[in-house]
């Protein structure tokens, strides 16, 4: 299976016109000699040294929160007619923005709102990047968990991939 994947990856690189070759596994990284022989023993040792036999973690989100999040996503998907990424520069549609405000407020209330979710929103709904960022709460942008530059980078990458000029996106953001 690995060999098949390697071939597929090499083929993909060729299709991308890339000069990169399918790599060797380690590519310069080493481990101390006998490391993988000793690792199971180290893990076992840590488990035996632990006073907690088995402690289950409290779920990170309550079922209510998960349900709320799922519901908000459903609303967003229902709003979608065409993907933002398929739009051209000239047909940005601000219809139903009021409804979107409601969704944004709803989303912002979620404890686990993060950049992955924003990214997913852009991928899965027709809400454009600029609409999303424009409507985001300043507190969220100021949260140190939120890597604004990273999500911007991804948004711009996606936009470029679909032929939308990054200058256009940036001008509508700032």
């Amino acid at each position: 299976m690995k060999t098949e994947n390697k071939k597929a990856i090499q083929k993909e690189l060729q299709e991308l016109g890339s000069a990169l070759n399918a790599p060797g596994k380690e590519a310069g990284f080493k481990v101390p000699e006998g490391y993988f022989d000793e690792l199971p023993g180290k893990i076992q040792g840590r488990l035996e040294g632990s006073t907690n036999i088995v402690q289950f973690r409290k779920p990170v989100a309550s079922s209510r929160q998960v349900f709320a999040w799922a519901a908000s996503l459903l609303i967003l998907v229902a709003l979608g007619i065409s993907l933002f990424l398929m739009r051209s520069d000239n047909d940005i549609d601000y219809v139903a923005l009021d409804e979107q405000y409601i969704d944004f407020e709803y989303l912002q209330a979620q404890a686990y709102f993060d950049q992955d979710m924003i990214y997913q929103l852009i991928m899965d709904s027709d809400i454009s990047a600029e609409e999303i960022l424009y409507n985001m709460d300043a507190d969220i942008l100021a949260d140190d968990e939120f890597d604004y530059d990273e999500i911007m980078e991804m948004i711009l990458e996606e936009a470029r991939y679909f032929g939308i000029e990054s200058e256009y996106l940036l001008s509508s953001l700032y």
Partner: protein
Amino acid sequence: MKQYTDDELLEKFRAGQTDMAFGLIVKKYQESIYWHIRRLVISHEDANDLVQDVFIKVWEALPKFRGDSALYTWIYRIATNEALSFLKKKKRRYLLPVGDLSKQLEETLEADVYYQGNEMEKKLQKAILALPEKQRVIFNMRYFHEMKYETMSEILDTSVGALKASYHHAVKKVEKSVVS
């Protein structure tokens, strides 16, 4: 030694042979999980701590594992989360502005006695470190771990289309940086 399937291992675990089944799971996945983490955190010492943390979490959560996803993708997901939250903590601990984490990881790469890449390998690694974090995860999983997009999609909970787009961008960026 017989290579057990994930289903067989889970069956053993549920049948009460917990230590044996867990030991076999560690042996089966330790290398791939270690390398996945190592490429993200770069330092062997950090990867060593994190891979142990991952398997301890696996041990703790295994009794509740329902098998909605494959064992392999579940362990990979735990490992990815551990590595990313480690990097996030590192960024916060050193109050690093965006972009500086990759510089710090480059320094770690240079200083790690367990990294002995040649010039070309080092150049490639530095280009990968300059990628945005999530794109770096995607690039590593595809390029080094030769993972199928469908599997990556399950692990990262991201659509195949988004993964392909991210990977293709990453390849272009890495190549540009390596060639220049």
